[in-house]
């Protein structure tokens, strides 16, 4: 019910716009391949070098002034684009927006966003809980979330479109309340120290303070709690997605509905001190249009992998992770779809307007949904009980057996509640260290990742999209330094762990 409403509202905002016609091109993109650089395990300098190369190649393959945004062929992708963004979720559109916002000259870049599902029936963006918090353990995540909060606060200055109504993302201002048991108390306090260091407003509460503030909480087993005082809450994901899309399209990004099925790649083996490595480059993205067996090739200089839960599959199309085991070519993008449920229930006597986004010591969470006594929440299953990911069916027993007991223990009024609805979505879950993957692949030189957010991608999208656009345009990060999140960590084996995963 909720989702159908959102869908209508979402699609209502979309205005059809002409798609650019790529007919006629100037200098063909360079086919130059990288030659003989030893692959070193130095994360930073490698990343930097890779990106310098991207930029050079991008420059060489920039189109002349043949970019005609009018005469169009409806629905078909352009024959040539500078940046092809695969995945029209919030990440894809954020990158598209930032590429244009940071380079507003008309012919600077041709950007196309390719999305396989115009209804977004499985995209995580629209199936998420819409929460934003600052309470992470990794400084990079806290910085991104602070930037995103700033962006959402001033969203109309960024994404407002002339002659269109102002954007309202329905932001609910309520902090996250993390509860920690005695075992988790030290970690929680350490996290809060890091968060405050980065400028987040977070307060610590003793069980007695907790009880006084929220009389409906049972504080058994709680040693300490932390509450985000500012910049936390939840908002409507559809509104944010549409705002990004509407603005990006008004700035000349084209949208194409079709599925990327394969890439045309050229590759070359190069001897390095670590042995022979295969470097490759995507020359064409092959897109299958709906109701058609034909593939439409799109010649491109750069591919952004924003396919969310499906980003590993897309990476495999470029040969990433399908090489022999124990080689660099065999290292997968460790991002998998993980099915997560969200349940909505009614409880007339439940927590009131002050209800936080409560994250229990057990990992179960809930928040208020509107003001009519409805709540939504869930729990991430353990590694052993990960559900099958074939479809998005909801296992209602999971609520009865796993989620509800925890909730009813923590909030005794929830002993009587009525489940009203439920849905499931896929986390773009990074199995290696539960953190985002941003930036280029070391071997497939022109694929950039923006994925792996493991359940908090929606809130990070404004900052992450900007970071990736900076990388594409300036070959370095300038707003937030996210070198740590590059693919190279999977090669070196150094985890960049995020302790606060919900």
């Amino acid at each position, binding site marked *: 019910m909720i989702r159908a409403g959102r869908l209508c509202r979402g699609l209502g905002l979309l205005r059809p716009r002409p798609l650019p016609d790529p007919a006629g091109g100037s200098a063909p993109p360079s086919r130059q391949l990288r030659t003989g650089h030893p692959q070193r395990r130095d994360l930073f300098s490698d990343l930097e070098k890779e990106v310098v190369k991207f930029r050079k190649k991008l420059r060489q393959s920039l189109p002349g002034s043949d970019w005609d945004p009018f005469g169009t062929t409806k629905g078909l992708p352009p024959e040539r684009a500078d940046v092809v963004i695969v995945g029209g979720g919030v990440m894809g559109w954020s990158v598209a927006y930032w590429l244009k916002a940071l380079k507003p000259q008309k012919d600077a870049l041709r950007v196309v966003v390719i999305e396989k599902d115009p209804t977004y029936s499985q995209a995580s963006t629209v199936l998420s809980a819409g929460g934003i918090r600052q309470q992470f353990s990794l400084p990079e995540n806290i910085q991104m979330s602070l930037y995103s909060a700033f962006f959402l606060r001033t969203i109309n200055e960024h994404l407002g479109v002339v002659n269109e109504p102002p954007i309202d993302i329905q*932001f*609910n201002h*309520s902090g996250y309340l993390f509860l920690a048991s005695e075992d988790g108390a030290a970690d929680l306090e350490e996290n809060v120290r890091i968060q405050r260091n980065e400028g987040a407003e977070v307060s610590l509460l003793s069980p007695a303070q907790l009880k006084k503030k929220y009389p409906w909480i049972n504080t058994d087993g709680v040693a300490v709690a932390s509450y985000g*005082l*500012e910049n936390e809450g939840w908002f409507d994901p559809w509104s944010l997605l549409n705002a990004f899309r509407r603005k990006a399209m008004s700035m000349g990004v084209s949208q194409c509905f079709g599925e990327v099925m394969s890439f045309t790649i050229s590759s070359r083996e190069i001897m390095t001190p670590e042995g022979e490595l295969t470097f490759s480059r995507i020359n064409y993205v092959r897109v299958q249009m709906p109701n058609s067996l034909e593939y439409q090739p799109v010649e491109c200089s750069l591919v952004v992998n924003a396919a969310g839960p499906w980003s590993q599959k897309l990476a495999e199309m470029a040969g990433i992770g399908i090489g022999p085991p124990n080689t660099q070519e065999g290292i997968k993008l460790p991002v998998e779809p993980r099915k997560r449920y969200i349940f909505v229930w009614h409880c007339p006597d439940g927590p009131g307007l002050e209800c936080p986004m409560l994250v229990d010591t057990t990992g179960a969470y809930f928040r208020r949904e509107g*003001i009519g006594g409805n709540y939504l929440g869930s729990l991430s299953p353990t590694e052993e009980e990960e559900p099958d990911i074939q479809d998005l069916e909801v296992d209602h027993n999971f609520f009865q057996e796993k989620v509800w007991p925890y909730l009813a223990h923590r909030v005794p009024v929830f002993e009587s509640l009525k489940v009203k609805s439920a849905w499931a979505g896929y986390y773009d879950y990074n199995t290696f260290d539960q953190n985002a993957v941003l930036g280029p692949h070391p071997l497939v030189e022109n694929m950039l990742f923006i994925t792996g957010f493991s359940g908090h991608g929606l809130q990070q999208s404004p900052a992450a999209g900007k970071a990736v656009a900076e990388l594409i345009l300036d070959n370095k990060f300038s707003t937030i330094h996210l070198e740590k999140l590059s693919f190279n960590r999977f090669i070196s084996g150094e985890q960049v762990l995020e302790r606060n995963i919900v």
Partner: protein
Amino acid sequence: SCELQQCRALARRPYGSAASPDPSKGGILQYLCNRFYDVEYLVGWSETLRYRNLRRKNAYCGYIKGIYGDNAAAAYFVLSHRGRVRFQGQETWLCVDRRGNFSYDFVELQDVPVVAIDLAGSVLNYNGLDNLVKLTALKSLDLSRCPHVDDWTLTRLQVFKDSLEELSLAGCPQVTERGLACLHLLENLRRLDLSHLPSVPTPGLIRILVEEMLPRCEVVGLAPAAGAQTSRDGREEPGVPSGDRRAGEIPA
């Protein structure tokens, strides 16, 4: 790129369209329109200027703060927005005269904490609160009829949680129940004026919820009764002062 430089050079000319070096391009406006995605991009500049102007008006008075401290800087900010300010132990408010001039007497009170601020009808927004957040003794704050006070602005009021006893948001057009929810942090609040909030959809229910959330606080306004709040044509009447009380007078 060199084209970009050319474009910038053109833009610097004072009468670009008349003196365009390349008349075939049809003047600088035409040139810019060709260069940028949309005319909308240019029109968008007027919006940008509006935002910039608002930001300037809400800028942090760092200079005054540096010399006279937080209280004086806050007083200066409030008075320059034609508001009123009261220091601890003072009976009278410092105000501006009809022309908007004010005396700098507050400089002598720089070590006395500010206890009450009335910024009703001003252009204060989220950023403007930079000037007030250090006032740890602030007991009363009147933000009624402020067009730029939105839910995000309310989230910043949590800094006054140990002192604030009285708050008026009456007639703020942007405030919604999604922002009111964060006022639960203001535990010392005794009086909250929420009359005439056009963006709160179900005032009756919200009033009950706010009262439950702040059990020790008297909530004014948000009455579900139609007659009390709406004028004959059904629109809410903006900015009717609640009773003959003025903000800043803490009930005994």
